């Protein structure tokens, strides 16, 4: 039942050590690398890929299909990066889809378009960041609950977008096709917009894992009072998190303009739910303080691959929805299982 006495004596030496020694290595090496915790998601993705290879062998594994999946994931992917920051920081942003729509509309008004594509891009990014800043101010300094503040922004930004566009879809004009080329031009067979997505993900990862900003984000979300007493300006940081999310929405607006050649108040409908779901499936806690960019992107890819598989298999909507519900549950259970077996 118990190990022999001398053996025990060995282990005992550092007071609480027996507790420590065993688990720490594996825990550390792996959780820090963020591999173990994503194993379940990777397994789920692999399973989906297998389904794809079995059901639509000739189309699923083609380069063009992979590119198509990534292009589809790009817009909401950029938003998901911002959302990951906000949620790790203990908040939530429901306004992402609406802010993206507003930015796309603002950037495609006749007035903006007359200044050329770069001003349009600048405009989208500024509008997004501005809306995010307003969210941040309301939450950090107005002390509104994030859910309510960003819900109000969702509603107001959609309204404003409808008003600016007179509810019409605004085409990117001939002179500004540079923007559209982000989606049509390919480098090494891959559209520029996928590279932009990749760059945002990498920058997001670096910001979260290699900078003081990232550190503070975890601290602010994990224990705001401790962060405050450690001298971190929690309010300012919170505000910046929402501005960052807004910035991502602005970038996403550029991508959606490139892909659809339009700005419209209907863009990004329900993106907030998809982005939040991806982040949470990716293992980020809704309560804040924990989470990874890679997890969120894996979560998003699962959703995108599911959609792609449905497209390729021509399933009808009802069956898709039912299947999607089940797959979400299974993916999360898989992930939990793989996490638990490690600890």
């Amino acid at each position: 039942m118990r190990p022999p006495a001398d053996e025990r004596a060995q282990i005992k030496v550092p007071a609480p050590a027996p507790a420590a020694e065993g688990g720490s290595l594996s825990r550390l090496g792996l959780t820090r690398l963020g591999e173990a915790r994503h194993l379940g998601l990777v397994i789920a993705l692999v399973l989906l890929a297998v389904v794809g290879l079995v059901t639509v062998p000739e189309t699923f594994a083609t380069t063009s299909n992979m590119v198509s999946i990534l292009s589809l994931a790009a817009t909401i992917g950029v938003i998901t990066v911002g959302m990951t920051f906000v949620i790790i920081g203990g908040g939530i942003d429901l306004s992402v889809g609406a802010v993206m729509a507003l930015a796309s509309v603002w950037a495609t008004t006749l007035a903006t378009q007359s200044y050329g594509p770069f001003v349009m891009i600048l405009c989208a990014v500024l509008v997004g960041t501005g809306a995010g800043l307003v969210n941040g101010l309301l939450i950090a300094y107005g002390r509104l609950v994030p859910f309510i503040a960003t819900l109000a922004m969702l509603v107001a930004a959609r309204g404003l977008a409808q008003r600016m566009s007179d509810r019409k879809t605004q085409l990117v004009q001939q002179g500004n096709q540079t923007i559209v080329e982000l989606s049509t031009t390919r480098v090494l067979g891959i559209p520029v917009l996928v590279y932009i997505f990749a760059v945002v993900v990498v920058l997001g990862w670096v910001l979260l894992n290699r900078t003081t900003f990232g550190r503070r984000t975890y601290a602010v979300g994990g224990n705001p009072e401790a962060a405050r007493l450690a001298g971190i300006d929690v309010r300012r940081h919170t505000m910046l998190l929402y501005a960052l999310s807004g910035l991502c929405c602005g970038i996403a607006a550029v991508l959606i303009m490139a892909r659809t050649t339009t700005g419209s108040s209907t863009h990004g409908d329900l993106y907030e739910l998809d982005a939040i779901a991806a982040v949470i499936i990716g293992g980020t806690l809704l309560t804040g303080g924990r989470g990874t960019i890679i997890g969120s992107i894996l979560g998003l890819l699962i959703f995108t691959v599911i959609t792609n598989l449905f497209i390729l298999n021509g399933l009808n909507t009802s069956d898709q929805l039912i299947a999607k519900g089940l797959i979400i549950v299974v993916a999360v259970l898989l992930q939990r299982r793989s996490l638990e077996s490690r600890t």
Partner: protein
Amino acid sequence: MPEAASETAPMLLMRGIVKQFPGVRALDGVDLEVLPGEVHCLLGQNGAGKSTLIKVLAGAHQPDEGTIAFGGQEVRLSSPTAAIRLGISTMYQELDLVDGLSVAENVFLGHEPARLGFVSQGEANRATRELLARLGHGEIRPTTEVGRLSPAAKQVVSMARALSHDTRLIVMDEPSAALAHDEVANLFRIIRELTAQGVAVIYISHRLEEIREIGDRVTVLKDGRTVAVGLPAKETPTSQVVALMTGRNVEYVFPPRRAEPATGAEVLRVEGLTVPGVFTDVSFSVRAGEIVGLAGLVGSGRSEIIEAIYGARRFSGRVILEGRPVRRGGTTGAVRLGMGLAPEERKAQALLLGESVARNITLASLGRYSRLGWMDRRREAEDARGMVAALDIRPPDPERPVRTLSGGNQQKAVLARWLINGRKLLLLDEPTRGVDVGARAELYAVVRKLADEGIGVLLVSSEVPEVLGLADRVLVIREGHIIHEAGAGELDEHRVLDMIMEGSAL
């Protein structure tokens, strides 16, 4: 009384209890024997397994091995309800109250007086009022929301809850940690009442003098094992108990004070500091190399004074750091100017529990380890490792989640956060709350060493001997006023107690 009790059959008999957590063997074959009507003390260092053992006894954890007999019968405590039904009630170490509910609702949570599911709130309030009166706290209203109570009052509510059950054995896990010592006396009065009625009490505390005062017999745990059973609490020498707990001969003494009063430059000067309704017109100063202690009752405003100085709450008056007035820049400004605070509630106010020790240590000095926001992770890790070694934080693994450390080691990590950052003034609020004897001695040494290196230290503690033993100079606070100031050598515990309660020294 203990003599009489020892002849009767044990009320509780735990044998060979083993409890394994992932990667941790918290209990490794613990034996415990409790007699009816006795106060049985459970001693052990932080992380020895005391709380785990009583959680097993409360049905909150299921043991992996071992047997439990209660009242002569072998029992299986499959849930908290099962334990409560047997007459075992527990006051947990981490306050187990629901902030959003009222006092009465908390007291009767899980066993509300109800008919067909409808709570009879009047009855609950009345019963709660009686319980609180019995505990000497008739002033706490049964209808107050618990979230608004002070930690001490919460402890009383916890106690009332334990008593609300028809109980034969009460387990108290560090009930005195949040209490000032007049409160503790009250607690002891109740314990004596209970034991007189034949109720047994298991009492856990890191304050050895309490054990001596209230305890009958002592069981000592070390590293999840029983190392001594049934020692007589009054007779066993302290040194022997400490040796059993720590495996070493730690002297429960304070590091030597510097010979003459500190003459360093004034680090902190406070003039007419006032937070309306909490404290008024507080003025004093702290010199470099000096430890100034604030003594006072719970609720006398000591924490608020410290928080105001630190910029964590609004105040009127002036705070002057090294000759320059501090503008109200919030905590960020205070940290930038060279202050550091080890707050009262470690877990709630200081630690990122899920993060590693290293990240907790460097939290307040991210700027030092970065250029243009980019973290120099190698240097950060090196310094953190150095800090862990310097303060002898155990286990010496900077990457371990801080949640898994014992209280004393967590407290050291909080101190390390400020040591790594070169402070001018350290504000310590109850630095040894819940910290075991061995770790305490080490903490005292660290604080003294810091002072010797020229840092000014402002110390708040509810344990008067600690203030007297560690500080150079003592300020006595009563109801938000400084009523006395003297060198620590000129005071003794009795005089300080008189002052903080009666103000007789005025």
